[in-house]
């Protein structure tokens, strides 16, 4: 039942929304939360605990504790005490079998004790071993939080935003507002974030302070402070990066100064029955009364270590609650406290004196909320006089204001717990960890707080230690007969409170590179797939072999713009390349092309491509598609080391490239190229400049796929123009686009290697069957020493071509088997229509690498025979390339 309208209440009784809880309609006022509306409707049990399925009621009403987590519109683990309802919101209980009021799993609270001691998953349910999967399934269903619906189709949009502030104040209580105001008046750009709907902090639950806080907030805003409501800092990272959860947006703030004005965390007291519904923290009770005009109970007992409890008692009285007793620990610390009740608290017995009540307010130590400061590596110390941890040293750029600094007066120090043996005394509300669990953990040797934390899982639940860290340390100190300062703290890590994985992930974008002809490929029916960061055509039809035939028989066109393209320019360019590559380029004639592989210091192949000499001091280098950036960085690094007179430029994106290939390639080139493409004027491995379809181009006469070919390099923005021109003028020869899959078949017919496919981190040029590319007579090159070593010790394996007479197809990566043991692997394999066989390449032991030698490959679990071929399968003399 609502109280009569009260001054400063947050609800607007003239506006209502209706949501459903477990299918039943619930009416809420504007300004209500789901939790307050349910409380107004008479609900007292809001959740079931993690392990024992104990009833849980509203405790903090500030989104700190785990007690009121429900599934809202399909999203589990929503703290309904701070979530406003919308019209039609669907709210369901979670972690129950049955209902919140009758949860069958609550049996674990009564009879599960012997089976669920602390660390039970290491002790029980582990034998027989084969039964563990069944135990695991049962336990995972029995314990836990809400469940995600894997079939949910509705997606919530989330955004990431970067923001900057000179000063970021975290916390909009009085100290936060005052700090923000002071910085703003000093001329700094200030942003203040607060978790609630308006700044004011816990003072908003104090009827005497509400107007003062609102006035201060208005003054702060007028001073130019940007105030962000519903904004929750979830960590403080290096460089003063503060991710802020704003519901559907994760704002990543970077600030010169971060002010933690995060206030205090009210701590529960530890006594038997301290988790019964009706046992609340002061702010929870005050918020119910003052925000939403709800009477938290009819008759209350207040246990308090400081003025908070006293003030709360006054506020509750004003709301019509009868105060049965206020136990002020500053006057006397009770030895024994026991709360009892079945569905909710019905009595509290303090040192043997029983009070009938339906509300217990427990105001334990006001622990400074230093979580963010700890993330920033602030030093925290225990203050034995007040029984709390306080920050004592702050890193540069981080300030603390108000209660978070330890400015909390002189509270009494409560005992770790009030008596034993009369029911469960809960230390960690999230994980159902009791004082007995800590006692057992310490007895079993988990006597440091870090070990005890991991063993008991205390502080590891949704509240992340906010309500249990201090009590856990106190109990651990008592059980180890030491003190809290010696025990120390656990390590605080982000996030300070739960954040959804979706919010962390952000928008589902994946950076993709597309060539300037990409959309033409799509128009022509290409199936596009990822190759590295590029989107490329796999093939243009369901039959890649048809594209292979087109290349062999007439004319094929493939977009090879993804190749890396580098310019090496300067007087030392030739010498520079000689040092980088095992082969030689300084003697390459202008207008000629040479193939090269790049090796690292260990002589291992890491990339390959062609090098064309454009001028005496100018080379054009191509690399593999995925290797472009790495090779460029490799070049730049060595240029910096060697201090040679060379300029380097990565022109990969600037230049589109198309390979025109097949017996009719020359005929097409005669139509579109403004130069002589005759075999004498433009020979194999020549590089020529001119115009293709009116576009300035560099043409390389090379042939990766084994047929007469011209590789056209031209400015990217002309991509579609050139592509269209090639097909328009190539129509007479049925010019056919071909994708990567046909290209892989074609190059395999020539046994041209793909670096990374046919080589691995151990491959060197000698064992990759390219001894001709290594010029050991050069003074030096990267990897020379290692390759000389390979030559001296002799080759152990060799990359060879092979065919499978049976026609069975091994998978790529299939084992080469010798004497029942793995002795190599298949690197590439395809069926070739041109050859009429299954062909491939494999790394085999050197003694099995001779022409015609047979070896065994594991295919589908069986061994099959393969025959070594040391010459290309197609056009072994290269006559077509040179034609």
């Amino acid at each position, binding site marked *: 039942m609502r109280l009569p309208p009260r001054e400063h209440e947050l609800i607007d009784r003239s506006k209502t929304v209706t949501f459903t809880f477990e299918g039943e309609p619930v009416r809420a006022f504007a300004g209500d939360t789901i939790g307050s509306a349910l409380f107004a409707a008479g609900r007292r049990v809001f959740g079931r605990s993690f392990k024992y399925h104990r009833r849980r009621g509203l405790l903090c009403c500030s989104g700190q504790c785990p007690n009121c987590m429900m599934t809202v519109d399909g999203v589990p683990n929503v703290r309904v005490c701070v979530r406003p309802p919308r019209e039609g919101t669907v709210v369901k209980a979670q972690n129950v079998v049955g209902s919140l009021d009758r949860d069958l799993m609550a049996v674990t609270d009564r009879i599960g004790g012997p089976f669920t001691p602390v660390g039970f998953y290491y002790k029980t349910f582990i034998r027989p071993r084969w039964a563990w999967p069944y135990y695991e399934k049962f336990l995972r269903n029995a314990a836990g939080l809400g469940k995600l619906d894997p079939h949910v189709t509705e997606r919530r*949009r989330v*955004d*990431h*935003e*970067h*923001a*900057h502030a000179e000063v970021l104040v975290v916390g909009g209580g009085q100290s936060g507002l005052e700090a923000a105001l002071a910085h703003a008046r000093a001329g700094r750009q200030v942003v203040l974030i607060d978790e609630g709907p308006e700044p004011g902090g816990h003072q908003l639950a104090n009827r005497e302070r509400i107007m003062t806080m609102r006035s201060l907030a208005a003054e702060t805003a007028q001073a130019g402070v940007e105030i962000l409501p519903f904004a929750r800092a979830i960590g403080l990272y290096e460089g003063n990066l503060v991710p802020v959860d704003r519901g559907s947006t994760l704002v*990543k703030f*970077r600030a010169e100064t971060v002010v933690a004005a995060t206030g205090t965390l009210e701590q529960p007291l530890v006594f038997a029955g301290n988790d019964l519904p009706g046992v609340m923290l002061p702010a929870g009770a005050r918020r119910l009364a003052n925000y939403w005009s709800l009477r938290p109970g009819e008759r209350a007992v207040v246990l308090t270590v400081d003025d908070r409890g006293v003030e709360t008692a006054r506020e509750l009285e004003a709301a019509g609650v009868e105060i049965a007793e206020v136990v002020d620990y500053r006057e006397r610390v009770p030895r024994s406290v026991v709360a009892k009740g079945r569905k909710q608290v019905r009595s509290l017995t303090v040192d043997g004196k029983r009070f009938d009540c339906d509300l217990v307010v427990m105001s334990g130590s006001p622990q400074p909320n230093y979580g963010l400061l700890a993330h920033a590596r602030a030093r925290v110390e225990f203050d034995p006089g007040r029984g709390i941890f306080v920050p004592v040293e702050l890193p540069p750029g981080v300030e603390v204001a108000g209660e978070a600094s330890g400015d909390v007066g002189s509270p009494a120090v409560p005992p770790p717990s009030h008596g034993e043996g009369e029911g469960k005394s809960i230390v960690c509300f999230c994980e159902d960890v009791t004082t007995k669990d800590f006692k057992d953990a310490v007895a079993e040797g988990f006597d440091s707080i870090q070990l005890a934390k991991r063993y008991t899982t205390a502080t590891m639940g949704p509240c992340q230690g906010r309500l249990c860290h201090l009590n856990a340390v106190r109990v651990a100190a008592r059980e180890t007969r030491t003190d809290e300062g010696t025990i120390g703290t656990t390590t605080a890590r982000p996030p300070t409170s739960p954040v959804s994985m979706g919010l962390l992930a952000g*928008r589902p*974008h*994946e*950076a*993709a*590179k*597309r*060539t*300037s002809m*990409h*959309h033409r490929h799509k128009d022509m029916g290409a199936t596009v797939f990822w190759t590295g960061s*590029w989107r490329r055509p796999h093939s243009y039809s369901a039959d890649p072999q048809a594209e292979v035939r087109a290349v062999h028989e007439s004319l094929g066109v493939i977009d090879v*713009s993804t190749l890396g393209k580098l*310019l090496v*320019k300067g007087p030392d360019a030739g010498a520079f390349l000689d040092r980088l590559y095992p082969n030689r380029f300084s003697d390459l004639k202008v207008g000629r092309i040479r193939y090269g592989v790049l090796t690292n210091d260990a002589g291992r192949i890491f990339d390959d491509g062609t090098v064309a000499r*454009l*001028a005496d001091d*100018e080379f054009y280098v191509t690399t593999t598609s995925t290797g472009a950036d790495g090779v460029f960085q490799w070049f730049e690094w060595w240029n910096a080391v060697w201090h040679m007179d060379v*300029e380097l*430029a990565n*022109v*990969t*994106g*600037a*230049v589109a490239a198309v390979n025109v290939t097949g017996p009719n390639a020359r005929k097409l080139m005669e139509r*579109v190229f*403004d130069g002589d493409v005759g075999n004498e004027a433009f020979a194999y491995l020549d590089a020529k*400049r*001119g*115009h293709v*379809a*009116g*576009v*300035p*181009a*560099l043409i390389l006469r090379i042939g990766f796929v084994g047929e007469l070919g011209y590789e056209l*390099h*031209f*400015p*990217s*923005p*002309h*991509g*579609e*123009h050139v592509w269209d*021109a090639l097909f328009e003028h190539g129509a007479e020869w049925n010019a056919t686009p071909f994708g990567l899959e046909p290209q892989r078949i074609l190059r395999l017919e020539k046994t041209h290697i793909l670096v990374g496919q046919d080589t691995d981190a151990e491959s060197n040029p000698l064992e990759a069957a390219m001894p001709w590319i290594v010029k050991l007579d050069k003074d030096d090159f990267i990897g020379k020493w290692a390759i000389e070593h390979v030559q001296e010790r002799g080759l152990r394996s060799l990359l060879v071509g092979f065919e499978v007479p049976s026609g069975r197809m091994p998978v790529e990566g299939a084992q080469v088997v010798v004497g029942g043991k793995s002795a190599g692997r298949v690197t590439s394999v395809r069926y070739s229509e041109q050859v009429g066989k299954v062909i491939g390449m494999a790394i085999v032991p050197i003694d099995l690498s001779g022409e015609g030698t047979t070896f065994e490959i594991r295919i589908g679990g069986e061994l099959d025979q393969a025959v070594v071929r040391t010459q290309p399968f197609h056009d072994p003399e290269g006559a077509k390339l040179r034609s």
Partner: protein
Amino acid sequence: MSTLDFLSPDRARADLGFAPLLRSSLERAQRERGATFEERDGWLVAASFPGEAERLASVALVDLSHLGKVEVRGTGEAEQSRDVLAWYRIRPDRSLVLTAYRDVFLTRSTLARHFPLALDQTAALGILALVGPQAARVLGRLTHLCELPASGMVSHVPAHLLDRDANGIWIVFPQEYGHYLYEVALDAAEPLGGGPAGADAIEVRRQ
């Protein structure tokens, strides 16, 4: 013909029976959003979009990839030609010079006399302008970079960022990422009331 002419789209010739047309890497995405194209200096330029005036009140995304771009190497003193729209010093010995496309040959030739290398990067780079009061907010959704000019990652793409005052914030990026970056920027802008606008929506001025 220079050895590096194949890097320069402005070396195209229309007298060989072909009509070379330059397309931005954003062209298809703009077409899908209803752009009206016009041919300007050999480029197919998205001149306008339906409803772009409203977007300018929030944030408009304008493709300026058709501008000329020259990368300069070396530490020589920059000769500030009146044709230069922007001169961004990436590092002490490396600068990016933006010009109108029709001026790029002249600019490049002039710079080549003063610097060891003046490379035409018109074909390599795209430019996306974020124009309007929400431009900085959209930028904040794409990158942590805020003090402009700057170089760094914008939505996982290496880019340069220039503050062009009334002409907005310019993102200069490798053109192969154009389609992706445009989609991402639109995705960030649309919830704020932003969207695409044509090149005519802003007047590109020298700064």
